[in-house]
């Protein structure tokens, strides 16, 4: 299981990386916005994408749209972990095809639940 973590703050990437390691996912890579994430997704055989929304360069919602529009990437499960909390934004993300949405600040338990739920659905 190879996971890409996209967030413009290195501390947040590190927190997510540590939580994922705790859940048994040790194979992770990091990118600081959509523009750096996309080429990595194209060449890296990732199984899962965790992305922030608000980032300089390409935002998380645009990254999600690009992923869904790409024939090779469109089935990649995407979890959004973001401080963006407007209802219309959550609806927008859902319509763009997000698989899970976690608002910051979040707990390890919430992250675990959402990831497990996504895999349950992907595997069924």
């Amino acid at each position, binding site marked *: 299981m190879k996971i890409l973590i996209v967030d413009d*703050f*290195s*501390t947040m990437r*590190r*927190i997510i990386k*540590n939580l994922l390691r705790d859940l048994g996912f040790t194979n992770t890579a990091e990118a600081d916005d959509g523009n750096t994430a996309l080429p990595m997704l194209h060449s890296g055989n990732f199984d899962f994408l965790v992305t922030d*929304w*608000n980032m300089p360069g390409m*935002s998380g*919602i*645009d990254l999600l749209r690009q992923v869904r529009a790409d024939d090779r990437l469109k089935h990649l499960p995407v979890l959004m972990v*973001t*401080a*963006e*909390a*407007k*209802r*219309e*934004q*959550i*609806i*927008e993300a*859902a319509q763009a095809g997000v698989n899970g*949405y*976690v*608002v*910051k600040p*979040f707990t390890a338990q*919430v992250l675990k639940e959402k990831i497990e739920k996504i895999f349950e659905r992907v595997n069924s």
Partner: protein
Amino acid sequence: MDEKKSSLGDFESTLKKHAVQLVDSLEKGKFGDAVQLIHELNQTRDRGLYQEVGKLTRELHSAIVSFQIDPHMPQAEEVSQITDATERLSYVVRLTENAANRTMDLVEQSTPLMSEIADEASSLSADWQRFMRREVAADEFRELARRVDTFLTRSEQSSRQVSAHLNDILLAQDYQDLTGQVIKRVTTLVTEVESNLLKLVLMASQVDRFAGIEHNHEALREEKDSEKHPTRGEGPQIHADKRDDVVSGQDDVDDLLSSLGF
């Protein structure tokens, strides 16, 4: 303010008085008088306008001086308060980032120590149970005793190390005090700047009245709203509980998504 009110009051009473006289002159066919009245009206309006623009300019200038952002001022070489505030906030970002990284470093160094102790303890415990059930031969017992001895020494060392790390994690939180002080100072500056800007807006509105300018507030508001497109993101919500269009936590997000069929 009183001075301003009276100059505006003068203008308005002259306007009223002259308007009546103007109608009167026109009705009586005294066109010369009418033109003279219009000329006087113009002069009063211009005088008021010049006065208000003058006040606005002076106020603007003193605002610029108090923000120290005038490049022609001798202090320009020193940092302006706004630049200073920006630097202070960058310092906050730097300090919080360092503290977060320091804390995570220490946690990452402590975790393997703790899991080593846990692993070795559970393995020893299994063998110890066998010993209690008298299932351990003399040779094996010597080996078990040696492992217990090593484990006790290692546990002591690791515990000391983890305690030291916990203490360092505690110390790494000192950023809260420093950043709190910096942010309070910046907040004071922002409040000051806001009240100065408000004063300028009030003065500008006096000029607007003399010049008869009306702003299309609706258009301005629409322009501002269009800048708030959801794709751009708003960052963390400070008053989530006071807004209807914002979720107040993960439970709200889950409810919303399940209502959408997720």
